[in-house]
């Protein structure tokens, strides 16, 4: 039985770490992008961003001040038990988000969509977002906290319901247009991690794109060789659009293009794109059944 307060504390700490430290794979990918980039302004964008992130890691400020949407991706095992039941995850997430906002690790950014009223704590209907899935027969919890910045979410979300006859040409065309549009003038804060969902229902398609962008470690290809080949084609093409970091000239538009698929209706070919920005914030807390907690920036 995992204690509710242990979960809330772990969520707070994972959110604090995500807000103040680059995940190691993202840090390494930015360094690699800098080495491969030749455009002086694009290089400067990356250098400054790395320097800014180092300041945050040393206790000065945040990786990025737009801490965006507070998201928690949670995976439980079939034997996981939680004090107060699984519904306690929502309360724990709200408590962690409120604390992180009060301590200025999260900016109060969530507002009512119509009145635009800001409660000041990032808590309201739907937020923080808790996405629960089950995997394996374990008894622990894996919680990834991801403060997802506005730039990538607002300017980097695309969806189209295509049809089987649109085929791979349709997929390539749609995703490349989305990357160019999102990266123009640095709207999604490139070098971006581009998540692509193909298949499923409309909402599943978008969820696949988001998870591909936020949760997949950089440098890991889809295990299906056909999908991996599609990722490679899109990645290579994205690096040849004449767009670099933050929309400057150059080649560093993307750090990764990650594609996830789900089976879909025989009449449909839904495709979604969701981008993650260059700071790629996510930090994971692993909680054992006995309540031991460990943290890592390397995603599952």
């Amino acid at each position, binding site marked *: 039985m995992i204690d509710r307060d242990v979960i809330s504390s772990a969520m707070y700490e994972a959110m604090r770490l995500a807000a103040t430290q680059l995940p190691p794979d993202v840090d390494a990918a930015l360094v690699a992008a800098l080495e491969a980039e030749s455009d002086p302004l694009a290089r400067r964008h*990356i250098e400054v961003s790395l320097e800014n992130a180092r300041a945050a890691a040393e206790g000065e400020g945040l990786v990025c*001040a737009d801490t965006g949407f507070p998201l928690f991706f949670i995976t439980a095992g079939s034997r996981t038990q939680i004090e107060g039941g699984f519904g306690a995850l929502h309360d724990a997430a709200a408590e962690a988000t409120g604390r992180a906002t009060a301590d200025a690790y999260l900016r109060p950014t969530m507002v009512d969509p119509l009145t635009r009223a800001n409660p000041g704590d990032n808590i309201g209907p739907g937020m923080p977002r808790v996405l629960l899935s089950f995997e394996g027969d374990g008894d622990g919890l894996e919680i990834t906290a991801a403060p997802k910045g506005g730039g990538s979410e607002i300017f980097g979300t695309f969806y189209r319901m*295509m*049809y089987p006859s649109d085929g791979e*040409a349709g997929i*390539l065309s749609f995703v490349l247009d989305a990357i160019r549009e999102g990266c123009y*003038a640095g709207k999604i804060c490139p070098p971006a991690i581009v998540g692509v969902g193909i298949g499923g229902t409309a909402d599943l398609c978008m969820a696949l794109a988001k998870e591909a962008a936020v949760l997949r470690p950089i440098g890991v290809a889809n295990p299906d060789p056909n999908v991996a080949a599609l990722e490679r084609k899109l990645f290579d093409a994205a690096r040849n659009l004449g767009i670099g970091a933050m929309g400057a000239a150059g080649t560093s538009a993307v750090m990764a293009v990650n594609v996830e698929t789900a089976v879909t209706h025989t009449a449909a070919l839904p495709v979604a794109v969701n981008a993650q920005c260059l700071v790629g914030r996510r930090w994971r807390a692993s909680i054992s059944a006995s309540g031991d907690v460990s943290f890592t920036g390397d995603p599952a």
Partner: protein
Amino acid sequence: MNETVRDLTLPLSEDDARGLELGETLTVSGLVFTGRSRLHIRAIEQGILPPLDFSAINCFFHVGPVMRQTEPGWEVVSIEPTSSIRFERYSPALVRKLGLRTLIGKTTMGPGTAEALREVGGVHLSKIGVCGNLLRRQVKRVVEVHFLEELGKTEATWVFEVERFGPFFVDIDATGRNYFAELDAHSRERLAAMRGELGIPEDFAYTEVNP
């Protein structure tokens, strides 16, 4: 961010603004005020403006700062310039209404703002990289805040005194030229070439179900 670049004193004079070249890197020193969507909408739709002397406090910084209240007063945690293009609906009117010579934000604005800046003799300066913690070091004083109760910390109007603030680069100059417009033309050509390499037929069109 250590290289020495030209520093200009705020408020910019018209000569200063018109002397800046597209792509030039610079820092600014003086007073800036902050705002985002709410300031724009309220200023133009409702005529609600913060009580500032805009001839003296003339640099509009597009940002929602992260602020922390401490014993001696407000402290800046991080200030990341936000995407200026979101304000394009109201920005040209605001630039004209307040005679703004300096906008600071993240990358590009539309032709309407570019034209308004050309008329008043003003520029848009874009951030370089993700830089909110580095900019924080250059805020010497939190001078005042307006609309904190109504709008909250993120959308309130803060006035900061800054010193060697930046560096930023000029992405819209006082003639209305836009740094990103030329890059856009180039990337459209590259996109067409990449579509060809990937074997997307030139006449490809998505299946139309409302023919």
